[in-house]
């Protein structure tokens, strides 16, 4: 077993997890104890992937860490895949041999200011990378820039959530130029090159962006960077419950209409918090109280919604074609469903 992967050493539940699980009222007997592995090199990561029957890549700080995946749920009535749902109530129950956290793989590997490129280990917290870059007068204008959040570069890329600078700076796809990936087979592969423009076959690294670690574990990433600018300070996405709307101009109007009753203070002066970026047509709303209101928003017409914590009220997100292609992709890249089982509903 890889170093850092000593089961006895890792088996004790981290306090943070205990607190969370306790807070959620899960009886201690039902709190699963899963070994946590923290590889220190690509080779150790590869060992983890080879030796585990199933594994989940998780940030040590992840708010979802006491439950496997669980971010996608299937509708009880139709069996259809639904949008993000947070833990714990609606999590999928999947057996996991180990959690792998890349927190010890947190270094800058190469920094080329004149080419505006940086290569980092995927476990480096985005905050740390941004701090490093800011000292050198550079920045990466994607991600959430949330100071309270310790998520790693690998997490952000694997999630590929819409962000406040989307309209101006695009998504991670526009900034990742190369990746080193550990596939489910244990094969370590590279896709892309240290250049800003590149057509060289099938762009695997693009397939990994937003795949939530279900097709491979991102080990290293090479990113474009740019000279620091006066970037807007983003409101954090650190919300216990929330919905993130990525829509178009028409949809933004409709979404605003839809949340209006909830952002208008009630008689106790309570109003839901929300943030909007008109240029990116992005809207983040905290804690939608009226779950029924979800159905009012016409997704097919207006766009995508990422949700946490709405459980079975989450609305269908994937088309039938998208689901079928995703399943096929999963079966090619991870035929035993080893990586992040449960994520996207893959069990």
């Amino acid at each position, binding site marked *: 077993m890889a170093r850092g992967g000593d089961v006895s050493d890792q088996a004790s539940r981290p306090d943070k997890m205990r607190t969370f699980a306790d807070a959620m009222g899960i009886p201690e007997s039902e709190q699963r104890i899963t070994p946590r592995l923290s590889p220190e090199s690509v080779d150790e990561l590869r060992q983890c992937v080879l030796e585990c029957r199933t594994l989940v890549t998780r940030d040590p700080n992840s708010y979802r860490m006491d439950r496997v995946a669980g971010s996608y749920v299937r509708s009880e009535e139709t069996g259809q895949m639904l*949008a993000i749902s947070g833990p714990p109530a609606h999590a999928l129950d999947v057996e996991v041999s180990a959690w792998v956290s890349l927190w010890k793989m947190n270094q800058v590997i190469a920094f*080329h*200011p*004149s*080419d*505006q*490129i940086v290569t980092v280990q995927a476990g480096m917290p985005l905050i740390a990378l941004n701090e490093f870059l800011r000292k050198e007068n550079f920045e990466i204008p994607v991600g959430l820039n949330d100071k309270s959040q310790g998520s790693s570069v690998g997490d952000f890329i694997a999630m*590929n959530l819409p962000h406040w600078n989307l309209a101006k700076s*695009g998504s991670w*796809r*526009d900034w990742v130029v190369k990746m080193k990936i550990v*596939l489910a087979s244990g*094969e*370590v*592969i*590279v*896709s892309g*090159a*240290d*250049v*800003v*423009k*590149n*057509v*060289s*076959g*099938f*762009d*695997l690294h*693009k*397939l990994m*962006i*937003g*795949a939530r670690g279900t*097709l491979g574990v991102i080990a290293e990433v090479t990113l474009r960077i*740019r*000279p*620091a*600018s006066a970037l807007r300070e983003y409101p954090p996405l650190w919300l216990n419950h929330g919905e993130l709307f*990525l*829509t*178009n*101009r*028409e*949809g933004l109007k409709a979404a605003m209409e839809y949340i209006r009753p909830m952002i208008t203070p009630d008689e106790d002066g309570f109003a839901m918090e929300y943030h909007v970026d008109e240029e990116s047509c992005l809207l983040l709303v905290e804690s939608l109280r009226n779950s029924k209101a979800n159905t009012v928003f016409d997704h097919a017409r*207006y*766009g*995508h919604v*990422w949700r946490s914590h709405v459980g079975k009220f989450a609305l269908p*997100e*994937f088309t039938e*074609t*998208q689901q079928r*292609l*995703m399943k*096929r*992709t999963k079966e*090619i*890249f991870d035929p035993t469903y080893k990586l992040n089982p449960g994520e*996207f509903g893959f069990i």
Partner: protein
Amino acid sequence: MGAYNDSRMDFAGLRSKLRADQVLDGSAAVRAYDCDAYTVDRSKPSVIVLPESTSEVATIVWWCVSAGVPFTCRGAGTGLSGGAMPALGGVVISTKRMNQILEIDIENRCLRAQTGIANRRISDAVKADGLHFAPDPSSQSVSTLGGNIGENAGGPHTLKYGVTVQHILGVTMVDPLGEVLEIGGKLGCGPGYDFLGIICGSEGTLGIVTEAWVKLTPIPSVIETVLVAFPTIRSATETVAGIIATGTIPAALEMMDRGIMNAVSMAFGLEYPAEAQALLLVECDGESVEAVEAEIESVRAVCEGNGCLEMSVAKDEKERARLWMVRKKGIGAMGRIAPSIVTHDGVIPRSKLPEMLDFVYSVASEKNIGVANIFHAGDGNLHPCFYFDDRDSVQVEKVVEAGEIIIRKCIELGGSVSGEHGIGVEKMDLMPLMFTPADLEAQAMAKRIFNDGELCNPCKVLPNQRGCAEHRMRWRGVAT
């Protein structure tokens, strides 16, 4: 692939599904479709079909699959790596007649069109609304939306606005089995795997994109263009890195060398300073005059710091067009100097431009062939343009060799085999220089998501495909 034999097929089944005017098979036609703008390798199709809709494309693909006949999609055929060459013969599916705009949504800044539409026509259709389709390959007046998607085409304004993939919201694609898939849409892609990301740039090997939703971008209200002359190649290449380092991202940052200037002077009578060895064309754009002028000032400072000879500023549209002439007509002008030209394509980290250009000239002089450079300097995307006579097989060999040496150097410097022209058949054998067998196997896995067979644009992109090696000699041999 051995089972398929062109000469025994009569294609009657296929003909029965289309009108007579939608099938071409005369000897002139099959010769016209035996290569794209990369003319070194050629292979004739048996028939060319001209579908008009997604369902016709699906019918054609379905027929090909059931008959075991290979098929290759073709847009305008301006590809520069042999992507549209029917490597194993069979059917060429031309999108020539699929050139309609289907829906325009100005408020949401997007448009849906059939993929045979020429790139330029998309922008023309929404110009009055102050919008355009940002990818602008130099071939844009003819090259098609489908071909741009196929090659993930870039252009002079890629530096600021990005390549094709960044402007595609969704596609309708006929997959290699003839099934119609809708991927993404008017609203782009939501959560889930990014299939658009691998379809763009897959050179027609994952299916035939028949319609696409494209993003429309506002035309900037302020544009400043300058053409700067430099006494040496090095002073120009160092200026490129210098400009980028200031944080200014010009809309375009293009470089042309003396060879290109001479060709353009001869062809169009334009004059450039006699001592100039290189020109940089720099364009900055934005919404406010002050911001754009500040950018131009910072560009000017870097140019002067590197000892530029002269800086011409466009005062109006007419002058801008004149400054762009050397970039836009450069390759065409080269075509007048020699019977044949081959424009190579490679990318390197920008800081390596000075070293790389020295290398390109030394390779050309070693091989004793002519070279001129005209390229997307801001992206580090080289286009050494070799001129030669393709009737002389010795020269052809030298040009191919020189291209390979240059690409090897690009990879050695941390770059890539191709920045925008793709792999096609031209660079298949160079892929292993950049990727390990495991990397390539993983790419083959990505291909299998859509294409698990051997009929849809066979023998492209990935090396060592089954049944392809024995055809290579034939492709090279038929240039008659």
